[in-house]
Structures are given as C-alpha cells and as structure tokens.
C-alpha cells in the first residue's frame, strides 16, 4: 500500500518534471516557454519531495519534515523568478506570438517597480 503510494508519487513527480522541461523545447516563444518550468516543474519537484518526506518518515527513525522547507522555498521563489524573467524579456522586447502591449513600446526602457 505504502509502496504503491510512494511509487505513484515518485512517478508523477518525475513525469511532471519531464513535461515541464519538455515545454522548453515544444513551446514556440519565450513568454509561453516561461510557463512550463515555473508551473509543471515546480509541482513535480513538490511531489517528489512529498514522496521523500513520506519515505523517510516511515522508516522508523521519527518524522522527517525538512523536505517541507525546500518545497515551501520553491513555491515562494518560482513566481518571483518568473516575474523577473518576463520583465527582463519585455525590457529587451523579445519577439512574442501575442501582440506586445502598447505601453511596452511606449515606455521603452523605463521600469518602475522593483518588486513583483
């Protein structure tokens, strides 16, 4: 039972990690590619860490929760780096499949706020 649960968590995590990285290849402009690693990969690694916490907690040496720390850290930092990357891309005016918004071409180099 536990074995099946662990196996499915590990497999789901690895599969999501792979799909997220596959998105880097398959999607066709930078702004779309940005979605793949920030979402799928983060959840994939989260699921792997959950499996790890479960695995070490059930080996009889006490509860192991420090994997939670990495998960929380990843979930906090992923949106920040995604926001900064897309801001940098807008700043460089990378080619996009969607129409670039008018204010980007107008404002040009002026960037206003530091934080997301």
């Amino acid at each position, binding site marked *: 039972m536990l074995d099946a649960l662990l196996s499915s968590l590990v497999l789901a995590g690895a599969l999501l990690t792979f799909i997220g990285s596959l998105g880097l290849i398959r999607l066709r402009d930078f702004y779309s*590619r940005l979605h793949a690693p920030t979402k799928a990969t983060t959840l994939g690694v989260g699921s792997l860490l959950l499996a790890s916490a479960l695995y070490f907690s059930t080996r009889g040496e006490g509860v192991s929760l420090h994997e939670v720390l*990495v998960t929380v850290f990843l979930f906090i930092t992923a949106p920040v780096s995604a926001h900064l990357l897309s801001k940098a891309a807008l700043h*460089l005016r990378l080619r996009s499949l969607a129409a670039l918004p008018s204010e980007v071409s107008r404002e040009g180099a002026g960037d206003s706020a530091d934080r997301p």
Partner: protein
Amino acid sequence: MLTRFALPLAFVLVAAAFACGFWRLLVGPSVPDRILALDTLYVNAIALLVLSGIHLSSAAYFEAALLIALMGFIGTVALCKYLLRGDIIG
C-alpha cells in the same frame, strides 16, 4: 515495486528533463531563454538529488538540495537584474 520499477523510470525521466534543459541552454536563441534553461536545470538538479536520497536511503542529500534551491534562485535574480539594469548591485 518502488526500487524495482518506479525509481529507475523516474531517473530516466529526470535525465530526459536535463537533456531538454541543456538543449535550450545551447540553442538559445535569446539571453532570457538561456537564463530560463539554467533555472529549469537547477530545479531538475533538486529533483535528481531527492531521487538519489530515496534510492540510497540517506538524508545527507537534503542539505545539498536546499543549497541548490537557494543559490539557483539568487543566480536567476542576479542575472535578470543584470539584464534589466546593466549592473547587479545598486
């Protein structure tokens, strides 16, 4: 079932994820693309370390994963800042 079947398959999938990341890192075409590829690679590295930890039943890999998470995030932010401003501090 876990060690016979799930773990090897998971290792293969994560290795394939590494390959995708490296491909994007080499091909580019733009600088943010490469930064994004690096970002993906460090998350993949965390996945690989966690899998190794389960495989070898050793908790020693946890600190390395945490450090990679910290350093990777700081690296991504610094590179983006460099693109946005032309320098990192200030």
